[in-house]
């Protein structure tokens, strides 16, 4: 596996995401039990872990889709759970969220999917400016020729790319990817990994990549964090995490390699 990480663009003095003592539970199920994490400007952090360990819950808390039970979650210097209404919307415009199942609006074609967030948030934009923005992001994800197609006519990988394009159109400072390669064949997964890296280079974004795909984590992450049993067992470079002797981490890696 060839790492394509870009450590030279990371500003380690400037944390764009800062999480301290984060707890979240659903009914009797404690999902996150005291999470601490910093994501620096320009950095990609891959969060690895088994299904159901709360990886997606973590990024949903970062955009205010879920509220934490306890702890401090700061994104771009603002405490997310203290924000409401317009303040929360202003922060959300700076965060791109790529959903596991792409979440494209299936009643709209690709063009309208991409135009929609722009039209709703920036009413002063002209048709020409919107068209230019749509074409720019479609070109960035390599799907300019799919502009008039409906989501139902796209493959899984193409949907993921359009989903990423829809977030890029708002020029976010932070990208949150929820299982970007799940359900994709190995070649399409490689293409998505390359796209994540090119987004980091081209748009200078900081990202959290939620995945259980080791290749994706290694190729896209400047650092990796292993989330098991509701807390981070290890945070560091992929090599550091991989070299750890913790039995639970080793069994997670072994299982992934076997399967």
């Amino acid at each position, binding site marked *: 596996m060839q790492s394509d990480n870009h450590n030279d663009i990371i500003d380690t003095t400037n944390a764009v995401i800062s999480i301290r003592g984060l707890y979240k539970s659903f*009914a*009797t199920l*404690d999902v996150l039990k005291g999470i601490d994490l910093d994501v620096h400007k320009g950095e990609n952090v891959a969060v690895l872990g088994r299904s159901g360990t709360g990886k997606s819950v973590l990024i949903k808390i970062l955009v205010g889709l879920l509220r934490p039970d306890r702890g401090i979650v700061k994104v771009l210097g603002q405490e997310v759970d203290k924000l409401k209404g317009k303040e929360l919307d202003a922060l*959300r415009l700076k965060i791109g969220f790529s959903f596991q*199942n792409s*979440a494209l609006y299936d009643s709209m074609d690709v063009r309208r999917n991409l135009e929609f*967030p722009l039209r*709703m*948030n920036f009413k002063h934009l002209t048709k020409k400016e919107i068209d230019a923005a749509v074409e720019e992001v479609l070109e960035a994800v390599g799907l300019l020729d799919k502009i008039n197609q409906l989501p139902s006519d796209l493959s899984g990988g193409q949907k993921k790319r359009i989903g990423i394009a*829809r977030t890029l159109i708002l020029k976010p400072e932070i990208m949150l990817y929820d299982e970007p390669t799940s359900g994709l064949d190995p070649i399409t997964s490689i293409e998505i990994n390359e796209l994540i890296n090119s987004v980091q280079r081209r748009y200078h974004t900081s990202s959290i990549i939620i995945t259980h795909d080791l290749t994706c984590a290694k190729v896209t992450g400047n650092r990796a964090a292993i989330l098991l049993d509701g807390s981070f067992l290890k945070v560091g470079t992929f090599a550091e995490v991989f070299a750890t002797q913790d039995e639970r981490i080793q069994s997670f890696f072994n299982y992934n390699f076997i399967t």
Partner: protein
Amino acid sequence: MRSGSKKFLLSKGLDDYFIGVFNAYKFIGRFFREAFKAPFHFRELVNQCFEIGLKALPLITLTGFITGMVFTKQSRPSLETFGATSWLPSLISIAILRALASLVTALICSGKVGSSIGAELGSMRVTEQIDAMEVSAINPFKFLVTTRVLATTITVPILALYCGFVALLGSFVNINAHESTSFVSFFEHGFDTITFLDMFTSVTKSIFFGFTIGIVGCYKGYNASSGTVGVGRAANQAVVLSMFLVFIEEVVIVQVSNWIRLF
């Protein structure tokens, strides 16, 4: 941090019922707060009115016409016994404009529009499209719920008036087949007995029915869960609950209008 077994205030069923009622009231309250606050999505509202009208129009035309025709056919023998067939236009007009048109339209819209709204929003919820709107700083409640509820509230009364007209047309066709009555004479006779209160009550009822169909469909769809099963359940519950509420509203509004009629 919560842990341990969940405690119920009364019993699980009663707790869920009261929580459900509370959430429904909160949902309705939010609709009224959002409906009168900018930004207004006029284009989406017009689009939804058009969608709802188009969806229900063929069925309403057919049902309205047949209802008028069959009702006239079934009423004729009873009136013939008393030699009062000339009263048919008045009888049919009262029955259709006071009760049948708005009720038939509401039931058709509950089935056709309510289920479609419930399924559409339910599917958007389980495929995270509503979350996608939220993280793009778009208010999904305002864009999806407010426009749909306003659209049903506006469209159902218009469809009910249309249904009434088509039903009277069906009635005229039947009457004309038995005795030569002119179109103008039929409507003159029919509308002689119709008062302003009848029309006002009918339109008011339809406004309530339209609001009910929209808000129930949106509530069930917007709060759908559990994957595709949840979508089906949302669509089904939207139809059943809105029909039930339509009948309750019919009884209440008729009682109130009859009470007003006494003065």
